[in-house]
């Protein structure tokens, strides 16, 4: 390769995402893996995988930035790291250059980030130390119901009614779910209620202004969540092409800017 590539790595508590972009900001390749317990090794494997898909090698790297929970464990970065809040904001603004409220639903955290028309952050909120509304909540429910995560989305779609879950707390929510099962409620209706409760918990964090952008791994794998959000807020939402990668893309864009300066 003659032109340099830029790397963004988003090491979340549950998944590690690496993207490779070119100097124009176009996505050349990406890789996603479970973060596991050896963050450094996962980062390296992901990097090589993404480079391979991009048709590039390590010597082509013009800059690299890491973000996310495990960002300090990554060794190949060249830029000072930024938080996932800044990187998601940068990544989403790249897709939609306008004022927006970003809702990021991750494995462990939820975030609501507000940007003005110039992409400047107006404020942000992270969930408190609680799994309500996160991917971890969905995983817990899938384990309780013994239904693979991948099937939850389609099952929810088949619901005819919805069993609402009232509690804030993941563990209490599980008890509510078990109670519904005991009462013989249809599983699809229960799962729809689980999805509804997730979105509800996120929406409670902050108000929504301007355009609403949804991102994060949970959204990427559960398109029904997007439809349901639209229904709940009464307007359409924007979805980036790769909702799970916005943080990594933002990091790569920052790495490119750092290299230019």
């Amino acid at each position: 390769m003659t032109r340099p590539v830029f790397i963004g790595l988003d090491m979340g508590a549950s998944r590690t995402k690496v993207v490779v972009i070119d100097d124009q900001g176009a996505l050349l390749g990406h890789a996603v893996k479970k973060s596991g317990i050896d963050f450094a090794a996962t980062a390296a494997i992901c990097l090589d995988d993404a480079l391979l898909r991009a048709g590039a090698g390590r010597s082509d790297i013009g800059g690299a930035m890491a973000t996310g929970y495990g960002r300090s464990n990554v060794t190949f970065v060249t830029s000072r790291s930024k938080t996932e809040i800044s990187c998601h904001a940068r990544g989403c603004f790249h897709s939609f250059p306008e004022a927006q409220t970003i809702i990021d639903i991750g494995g462990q955290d939820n975030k609501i980030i507000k940007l003005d028309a110039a992409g400047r952050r107006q404020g942000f909120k992270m969930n408190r130390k609680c799994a309500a509304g996160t991917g971890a909540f969905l995983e817990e429910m899938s384990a309780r119901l013994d239904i693979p995560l991948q099937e939850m989305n389609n099952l929810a779609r088949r619901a005819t009614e919805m069993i609402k879950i009232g509690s804030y707390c993941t563990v209490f929510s599980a008890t509510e779910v078990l109670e519904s099962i005991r009462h013989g409620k249809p599983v699809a209706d229960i799962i729809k209620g689980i999805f509804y409760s997730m979105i509800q918990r996120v929406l409670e964090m902050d108000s929504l202004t301007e355009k609403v952008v949804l991102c994060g791994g949970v959204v990427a794998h559960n398109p029904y969540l997007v439809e349901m959000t639209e229904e709940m807020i009464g307007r359409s939402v924007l979805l980036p092409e790769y909702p799970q990668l916005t943080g990594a893309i933002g990091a790569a864009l920052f790495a490119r800017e750092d290299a230019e300066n």
Partner: protein
Amino acid sequence: MAAEKQPARKKIESTGQMMKIMSEYFYDLNDAAAASDRKVAWCTSVGPAELLRAMGFAVHFPENHAAMLGATRMATELIPEANTIGYSPDICSYLTADIGAHLKGISPLARAYPGIEAPPRPDVLVYNTNQCRDVQDWFSWYAREFDVPCIGITSPKNFTDVSEILVDDVTRQIEALIPTLEEVSGQSLDMARLRETVALSRECTELWRQVLETAMAVPAPLTFFDGTIHMGPAVVLRGTRQAVDYYRQLLAELQQRIADGSGAVDDEQYRIYWEGMPVWGRLRQHSELFARLNVSVLVSTYCSSWIFPDFDPEEPIRSMARAYLGLFIVRSDAYKEQYIKQMLEKFRIDGIIYHDAKTCPCNSNSRYGMPQRLERETGIPSLVISGDLNDLRCVSDEQTVTNVEAFIEQLEERKDHA
């Protein structure tokens, strides 16, 4: 990998002198508890300490002890002890940690001061609910435990102006404490001595204000984290000569720092206001986190709460009432917002961090829309972090760091675009 900068922690030279007077204070308390001719009173931090001191009591402040339990990270282990006897994990973690320590028979005083085993046994407990109701419950528990009287002031709350009616009320309540205190101490109140004590409190408070206001300088010569340590004498030795002498020394050192252009944080880039209590078990981590980001957390509601301009030796009891009512925590949101706005301007603040302390709703001003209102009115961004003063089970370090870093990045963005 871009190496993380290790912050240099700048030592305040006067710290040695502070440790000395604090140590003398604790040994004196310990001696008083053992002596037959001196009585011990326990007092809330903004309770009528002037009255107690003037009547010859050795004065112990359980909140100070509780903060030590937090700072030494003993608290989280002890809180469950109080939970098991009926004190919920949702109430004041000063209370639960302190009662837990008593139940377990352990104290950070024993570690720090050889020869002292525990806080001194009280002869009387005196509270003021100007902070919260928890102090009254806390002191009542000890009153039952030690079978001694528990008296105090039930303060009005949530008022904007300290009106004469309120001052009348609290004045009468302070006066009503005197007969019991005279009985316990065996001495009658000497007004000349009270005047002297009030004068010393006033002086202490005035010097403490000047100490805190050195942070108006750019860069600020001291941080909130230094303040939480150096306020020790203002809390436990208010009304004494030692506290006054100490703050003179500290003030001189900080003024020298200003003259030398030496900031508490290297290359100060942002100036932050801290609203709420410190997370005692994380003082060091938090101070290092901000220093690493070139951020000075230089002013706070908490440390400034020990400034009482109303003390007046000419009118000792009435001015005590006025001072105790003037406290930030006891006032209305309208007053608090006005006060914070002035501080933001005075100290040239770039952002506010609200610590929402799980077990201290009274010292958490982020729950009724205040951050949003102030942000709208001043344009100064704010961040709310969840945590607690003593109960580290309510603290998530990872979340705190991400929140703070993201907040500073937000301030950077504003600066870049300015």
